């Protein structure tokens, strides 16, 4: 044995390097040159719940180096175990990257990485927080105590219960643990009992870890994601608002006009001989800069088709020769065509050519006329069978591409700017703000699950009405203030006026530049579809209208909610009753209590339920069935007299709220009234009506209740599950590490023997 070891320790050959490394770290020589085991360098590492990031980075670096060595066949069990953990993280990261790319929404993209992080975080944190920390606090034993062995490898002290490392505990450690575990200080072999208890606790704790981790980690991860979603939404939202604003400010319509659009150039040069048909037309459309407007794309397609038709209809000698080959005297044909230049032929009509040929044929007048008809038909038939190649329209397409390239990129910047603020997709500022308004209201009303369940079924707002009525005045004001603040934020952040100014200015610049470029290149008709004096039907108009309509629609929905809450409060205070009674009297109608009550209900139901189409029917649809007088009274109460309201009790009670509401009503009511009455063509179209009327309260309540009910139910199930799992784990952790019979017996003996 000694000889073998000596040979290893003294052998420096490359072949033995790896194995001699292990032996050299294990054995050494004594003063007489004999082999002896090296001093044990193993020691406990500081007991910490959370590791240091520097250490983590060092370990990771070591692991990566170890992967390289293992690929060559050099590794030990410890290294292979660590490689497994690294591989799991690499695989998970690769998966998160794939899902990030695949997911269309920014929030979802981000959540893929957040989900990955929280999952690994939960797997690591669960045993620390639910098992390791409580057991350590109670008993002083760190069941995940780490140590560093003589070879410098970091390992778990209690990983293998059969590999006893409790000798690494210092005197202080044993005293501390013994005290916490209340091991009798008079026991003759106290240290042994302390070590036994520590080992037992570790075995029990590790079992508890294995049994609980699978149940806890996914739920913990999902709940953490749930909590993080809100701040992440805010960060992403702010980032989108800022970045699109910067891009918009930096957008210059002019300046890159000289850019050559290479995609179409490449396609044309590679497919010059390809016949222009549906397939190649589709390809050309794909290669042109994307202007993302179906109307405009349709116009481009039409333009290319007309271009192809022009080429086909332009005469040349080849077509005429091909059409008349063997059907007309060849010598005459050559003579007539020989007298005409190519330009003259291309500018001539088929009939002109046919007439010249007939004249040259020397036939009588009657026969000549017949021949002209026949020749015309033959040439036109051949013309119609002619094909146009991609190469023939290549030059025009290149010019079109160059004209649109700047327009396409500019339009995208403007669209992103609009989308980040008022886009219909989830994750946009308007969608988030709508969610905040909803959550604020529902949270303030403290709706129970059964109430939410009822609301999500039919959107019956009576529950909300009741809850609002029950709200004390101060809480009602607080709620109103919160809602108004959110609406104010909406107006500030989207910067309604500011946003529209930016959009219309930039749209005008970008579309104007594109229009000029298109005109310069001879695409007059297309230029008119981008921008024009009349503006209607142009892309410029489409961009600005879409933005303004979205801003207005959201604003109307927000204020409709405020107005509805205001009406409910007025009903409660009796103010609405007197207002309606006066209106009924003035109209010469029954103003008894019952009639007033009925009219109030109608007012409320119009506000809560009227859809844009109900407005289109002047609220005479099956839902409302109002006669002309009722219609006038209700629209007057709801949409007019803003200034009178401002002076009313509620306005005095909360002036700021009413000021804003009245301001909106004064600005919007005339338009809405026109939309309702249909007195203005511009205001009475469906989009305008929809934007002005806002979302019906019942629809909004129903949709919001559905979402809140589902997420609350999910939270109840999995939050409840988490509480149960954590509870059981913590309680189990508390009863672990009980005394062995042997220890009890020893204690008993001490007591008995004094």
């Amino acid at each position: 044995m000694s000889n073998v070891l000596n040979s290893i320790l003294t052998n420096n050959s490359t072949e033995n390097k790896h194995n001699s490394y292990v032996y050299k770290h294990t054995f050494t020589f004594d003063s007489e040159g004999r082999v002896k085991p090296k001093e044990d360098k193993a020691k406990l590492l500081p007991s910490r719940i959370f590791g240091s990031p520097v250490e983590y980075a060092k370990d990771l670096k070591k692991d990566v180096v170890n992967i390289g060595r293992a690929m060559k066949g050099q590794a030990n069990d410890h290294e292979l175990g660590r490689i497994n953990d690294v591989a799991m993280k690499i695989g998970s990261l690769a998966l998160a990257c794939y899902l990030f790319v695949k997911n269309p929404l920014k929030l979802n993209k981000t959540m893929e990485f957040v989900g990955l992080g929280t999952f690994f975080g939960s797997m690591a944190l669960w045993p620390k927080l639910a098992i390791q920390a409580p057991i350590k606090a109670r008993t002083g034993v760190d069941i995940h105590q780490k140590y560093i062995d003589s070879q410098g490898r970091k390992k778990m002290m209690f990983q293998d219960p059969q590999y006893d490392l409790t000798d690494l505990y210092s005197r202080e450690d044993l005293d501390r643990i013994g005290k916490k575990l209340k091991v009798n200080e008079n026991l003759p072999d106290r240290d042994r009992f302390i070590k036994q208890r520590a080992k037992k606790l570790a075995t029990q704790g590790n079992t508890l870890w294995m049994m609980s981790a699978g149940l806890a980690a996914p739920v913990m991860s999902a709940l953490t994601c749930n909590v993080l979603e809100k701040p992440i939404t805010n960060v992403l939202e702010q980032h989108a608002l800022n970045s699109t604003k910067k891009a918009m400010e930096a957008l210059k319509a002019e300046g890159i006009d000289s850019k050559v659009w290479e995609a179409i150039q490449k396609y044309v040069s590679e497919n010059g001989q390809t016949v222009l048909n549906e397939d190649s037309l589709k390809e050309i459309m794909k290669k042109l800069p994307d202007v993302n407007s179906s109307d405009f794309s349709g116009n481009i397609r039409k333009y290319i088709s007309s271009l192809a038709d022009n080429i086909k209809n332009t005469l040349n000698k080849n077509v005429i020769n091909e059409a008349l080959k063997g059907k007309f005297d060849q010598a005459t044909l050559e003579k007539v065509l020989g007298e005409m230049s190519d330009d003259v032929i291309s500018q001539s009509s088929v009939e002109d050519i046919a007439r010249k040929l007939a004249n040259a044929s020397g036939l009588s007048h009657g026969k000549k006329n017949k021949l002209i008809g026949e020749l015309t038909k033959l040439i036109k038939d051949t013309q119609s069978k002619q094909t146009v190649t991609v190469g023939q329209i290549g030059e025009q397409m290149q010019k079109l591409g160059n004209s649109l390239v700047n327009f396409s990129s500019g339009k995208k910047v403007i669209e992103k700017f609009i989308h980040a603020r008022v886009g219909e997709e989830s994750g946009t500022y308007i969608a988030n703000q709508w969610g905040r308004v909803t959550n604020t209201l529902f949270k303030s009303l403290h709706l129970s699950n059964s109430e939410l369940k009822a609301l999500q079924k039919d959107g019956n707002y009576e529950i909300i009405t009741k809850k609002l009525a029950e709200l004390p005045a101060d809480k009602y004001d607080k709620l109103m203030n919160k809602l108004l603040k959110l609406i104010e934020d909406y107006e500030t952040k989207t910067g309604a006026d500011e946003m529209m100014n930016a959009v219309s200015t930039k749209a005008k610049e970008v579309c104007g530049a594109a229009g000029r470029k298109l005109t310069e290149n001879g695409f007059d008709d297309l230029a008119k579809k981008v921008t024009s004096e009349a503006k209607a039907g142009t892309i410029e108009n489409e961009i600005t209208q879409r933005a303004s309509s979205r801003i207005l629609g959201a604003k109307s929905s927000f204020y409709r909610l405020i107005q509805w809450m205001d009406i409910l409060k007025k009903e409660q205070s009796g103010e609405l009753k007197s207002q309606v009674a006066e209106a009924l009297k003035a109209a010469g109608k029954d103003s008894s209590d019952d009639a007033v009550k009925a009219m109030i209900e109608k007012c409320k139901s119009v506000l809560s339920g009227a859809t844009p189409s109900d407005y289109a029917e002047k609220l005479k649809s099956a839902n409302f069935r109002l006669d002309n007088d009722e219609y006038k009274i209700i629209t007057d109460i709801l949409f007019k007299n803003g200034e009178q309201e401002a002076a009313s009790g509620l306005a005095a009670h909360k002036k700021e709220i009413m000021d804003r509401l009245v301001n909106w009503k004064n600005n919007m009511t005339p338009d809405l009234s026109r939309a309702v009455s249909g007195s203005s063509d511009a205001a009475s179209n469906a989009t305008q009506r929809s934007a002005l009327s806002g979302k019906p309260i019942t629809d909004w309540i129903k949709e919001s209740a559905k979402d809140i009910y589902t997420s609350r139910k999910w939270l109840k199930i999995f939050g409840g599950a988490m509480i149960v799992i954590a509870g059981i784990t913590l309680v189990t952790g508390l009863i672990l590490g009980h005394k062995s019979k042997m220890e009890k017996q020893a204690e008993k003996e001490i007591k008995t023997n004094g």
Partner: protein
Amino acid sequence: MVDKIGVQNYTNMKSLSALTFGSKDAEKRSKCENHDRLMAEDIKKHPISTRLKIQSDKLRKAFTKYPVKGFKGSKNANFYEFLTMGSVPYLTGSAMLIAVFNGARAFISDEAKKQAAAKLGNKMGLGVLFYGIAKVLSKKLIEIPVKWKHGIDVNLPYIKKIDELPEEDNKNNLVSYEYHKAYESVDFPRWDLFYNNKFYGEDRNSYFSKIADKMNINDGDLEHADQKVKPKIKEKVIQTKVFSTLISYLWAAVGVGVAMQKPWEKLSFNLKEIGSKFVKSCKEFVNNPNPAARTAGRVLLGAAVGMTLLGNFLTLFDFNKDKGSKTQAASSLIDESKEKVVC
């Protein structure tokens, strides 16, 4: 107590024979056997059923026997039991993940949102399933070629007999059995189980000689075959392990990627339909209409395929042949003139 343990050992050796899945004869065991038994013959005769039985036994104990021992803080609890219990969080975690993504579906009343949740839930649930399947099966992409080329089965199981210490509540049933793999430790492979193993031949070194044949390093010196081939086996086992680990997580990611495709939005329990959906989703994974997703899918698949090919290349061919193995207790350390003691 010593006598009692001895009696127990004898009694339980009979039950060890009963666990041999068809191998009735204790005589078949090699002379060197130290009560642990290599299951090479079982694997050869009944490869699938043997492995299934081993897995089911481990799984059953992971949920029953080992947690009980662990919670008691048994002095006989060991690392094998802890590792075997590792399958519990894998399975419960998978079930919990599926539940997290599908748990609230029943409470969604909006039909459109319910359908959207079902689509996502199906894909996520299936993703968990595909992750597990891809992770397990992909390892075979390295292990099978290595077994075919070098004759080394890194998963070759053996039954390990454990003589336990008496405990306060258990003083009689003191023997337990575990299913290990002969090469589960690269530091301490169970070489002893291969010596004199009649399954591989009559000679003491038959197994090593066969492996040397497969590796084309057999110089006919049967007596020393083990010393020549052991370092090489170790090297190949390490490479196989590291590459099968690396590719398993990449293929698992591909598995989830395939599960995230549109065909799985509506689940089916018809085998033919499942097959067709699988083919469609694989095609969509690499040919997604979204160019970014298409590229990402191809890159992910490329990484998995690339790593698999690299793994096969490095494990199947011997690049250390001329240099000599760095992992071996090199032959120069062995005094050839002296009698060797193995086993």
